[in-house]
């Protein structure tokens, strides 16, 4: 009976992402065979650290895309958040307060995106693209273009957030990913709000006719994306122990690619968080593997770009087939 139940759970989790899941297994198997560095404890921990940022951004983008449109501001939002969280600490605030403030600002930025998009009717692409530049600009203004090093990290608590591990295997930051996954997955699958997100993305006009509060749903979804981007920024800063206004370029593209690879439709209304997780793992394992294989970083960009094109192409094919 438990076997039956497990089987059903397994099927539910990977529903509609069979191809992506298969691709992930192939890539992992290939890396196990062709490198002797991939299947090691050290690399496993490293991989978990590497995917943290993209994972949080992708969770946010999954919510945005399911509701219909992407959030292009998350990459520079990460940069700004790394700067904020370090500057607050250097101003003498406690670690907890610094993180809290960064997250609150993240919520405000996300809500601003959502407010402008839902209330003015300006296209989400333009609103978040504009915000992308604004946030990047602020990050440069605050730091004058340079990095912010945390001067006073008592007991390395900030550093440990991303770098310390449980039993030498699981970084603490991974726990944050697990909690985020559970919360967002529950929201999407088991709440009225999640149901309404899918409805808004599937056909916003029908949603209006059904009395669904389209504007506020969009507002809240972009707020969630802002919060997750701020969290990603905090963890990124803690990993490299500094605020970097130059970081996060193109992160939104990678986050969108992960979600779409995992079966989230670029046109809204379709997708699951577990699917996105598979997409995130594929993107993570790919860059990790390419590093191990010592492929030039510039070529890595080319490969990632091609993956994005291929993923969106398959999404397109799938949609034109159902028509």
């Amino acid at each position, binding site marked *: 009976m438990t076997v039956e139940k497990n089987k059903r759970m397994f099927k539910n989790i990977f529903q509609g992402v069979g191809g992506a899941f298969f691709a992930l297994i192939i890539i992992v198997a290939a890396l196990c065979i062709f490198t002797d560095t991939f299947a090691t404890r050290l690399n496993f921990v490293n991989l978990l650290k590497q995917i943290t940022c993209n994972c949080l951004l992708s969770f946010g983008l999954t919510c945005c895309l399911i509701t219909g449109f992407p959030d292009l501001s998350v990459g520079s939002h990460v940069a700004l958040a790394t700067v904020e969280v370090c500057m607050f600490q250097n101003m003498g605030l406690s670690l907890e307060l610094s993180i809290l403030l960064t997250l609150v600002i993240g919520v405000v930025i996300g809500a601003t995106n959502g407010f402008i998009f839902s209330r003015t009717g300006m296209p989400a692409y333009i609103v978040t693209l504009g915000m992308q530049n604004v946030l990047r600009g602020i990050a440069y203004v605050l730091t004058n273009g340079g990095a912010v090093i945390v001067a006073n990290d008592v007991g390395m608590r900030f550093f440990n957030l991303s770098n310390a591990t449980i039993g030498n295997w699981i970084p603490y930051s991974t726990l944050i990913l697990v909690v985020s996954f559970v919360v967002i997955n*529950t929201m999407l*699958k*088991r*709440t*009225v709000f999640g*149901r*309404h997100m*899918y*409805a808004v993305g*599937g*056909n916003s*006009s*029908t*949603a*209006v*006719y*059904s*009395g*669904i*509060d389209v504007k506020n749903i969009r507002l809240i979804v972009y707020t969630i994306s802002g919060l997750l981007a701020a969290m990603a920024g905090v963890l990124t800063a803690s990993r490299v122990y500094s605020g970097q206004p130059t970081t996060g370029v193109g992160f939104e593209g990678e986050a969108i690619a992960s979600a779409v690879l995992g079966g989230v*439709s670029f046109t809204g*209304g*379709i997708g699951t968080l577990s699917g996105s997780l598979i997409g995130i793992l594929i993107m993570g394992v790919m860059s990790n593997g390419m590093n191990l294989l010592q492929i030039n970083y510039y070529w890595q960009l080319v490969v990632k770009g091609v993956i994005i094109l291929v993923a969106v192409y398959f999404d397109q094919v799938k949609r034109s087939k*159902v*028509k």
Partner: protein
Amino acid sequence: MAAEYIIEMKDINKSFYGVKVLHDVNFKLRPGEIRGLLGENGAGKSTMMRILNGIYSKDSGKVLINGEEKHFSLPKDARDAKIAFVHQEIALSSNLTIAQNMFLGLEKKKGMFLDDAAMRKAAIESIESLGLDLNVDTLVGTLSVAQQQMVEIAKALTQDARVLVLDEPTAALSEKEVRFLFQQMRRLKGKNVAIIFISHRLNEIEEITDTLTVLRDGCIIVDGTPTQGLTSNEIIAMMVGRNVTQFFDGEKPKGTDEIVFEVNNLCNDRVKSVSFQLKRGEILGFGGLVGAGRTEVMRAIFGLDPVEGGEMRLHGQRIVNKSPRQAIQNQFGFVSEDRKQNGLILVHSIARNLTMNVTSSFIKGIRYDKAKEKKIVDEYGAKLSIKMSGIDQLCQYLSGGNQQKVVISKWLASGSDVLIMDEPTRGVDVGAKSEIYRLMHQLAQEGISIIMVSSELPELINISSRIAVMHEGELNKIFEHEELTQYDADTLQKRIMFYATGERD
């Protein structure tokens, strides 16, 4: 010497994924003939026309144009053979002018560059030859649907077509525009152009066509039978293969005397002081020409458009519907005229769509009661006999009639007392039509009050307990139940048209 037939299709067969959709289809058309092409949805009409248009390739058989065998593999090939198509959905670019649209893909050139002057001149000629009063420099997006339809036809004519295929051209047209279209069709017939006319409206088929071709399940039932002398019931019998009553034949619901909903002097920029009362258990029909403001009245009632004046009363109590949300709380339901745009989420399942308004009854916090959801879907699925492979089937795979049933179920599930149905049978086939009529009748008897907007006069006359007729934003006349029974159908149609065109006693 010209051949006897302008088009001859011989023993055409076509299968999709192993399913045969056309069986040995034989079709002959003479120059100057207006042919009605009939069949239920899915009978193979569109497949047949798409083969003629070069969109689909045939599996076997021959297509002869003017006695010469032709192989069409692209729509351009059909165009070169002087066969022009006006599709049901308007295929014009709204950001281009009439003249630009008319030569889209066929642009005239002077050397390397566009020859705008020549194209404008030809466009003006074509528009004038149709007797249209339109400036060819107007953007198509600013035209009414009917005008766009006429531009489509004008476009087909600039190609000097010998055969014109009109696929449900009247679906979006008002009665007056249909008259105009028919006049043009007769004129073209006089010029020896052959016309294939596809329509679901039998009265139009009877009026305009010379001969009929009927398809059923991919087979030709009759080809080239003279239309004259056939009754509607005989034609329908050929289409569906059994004798059905043409429309709903039961007694019309009379409704009770209890007034459920009342509108007094409702105004906004499209609606001029509309007042009416709706009784429990009745079907109040709204007739009028396209653009008379019927949909606008419904949108205002449902909170989709602002109300600038007047009041609404539900069970005697004054209410305001500022948004659809509020209207739904007041137990209103709205089956909109465009179900794909406003009624359904096509990429979602039947279950999702059907329970959209009542999600909170089975999802509380993070407790999701799947069994209860299924119970709701099963209940309405059975009540409305929705044909589905399972509750998780996506709505995009359903037929028009079944999609409409899902939309209606959605409103029934949320307990609507007042159900507004805007063109409830648009785009559904004859069989599903009578099923929807029976359902509406049943709902009325269960005490639901229905407002039905319909552009089809027979539908209005056959279903409604009372009929309100609108003209240019005003409610011109309400036919009471007694009046409806006193006239015969023919007289009634004329009476309704009388008020719909703005006449008054």
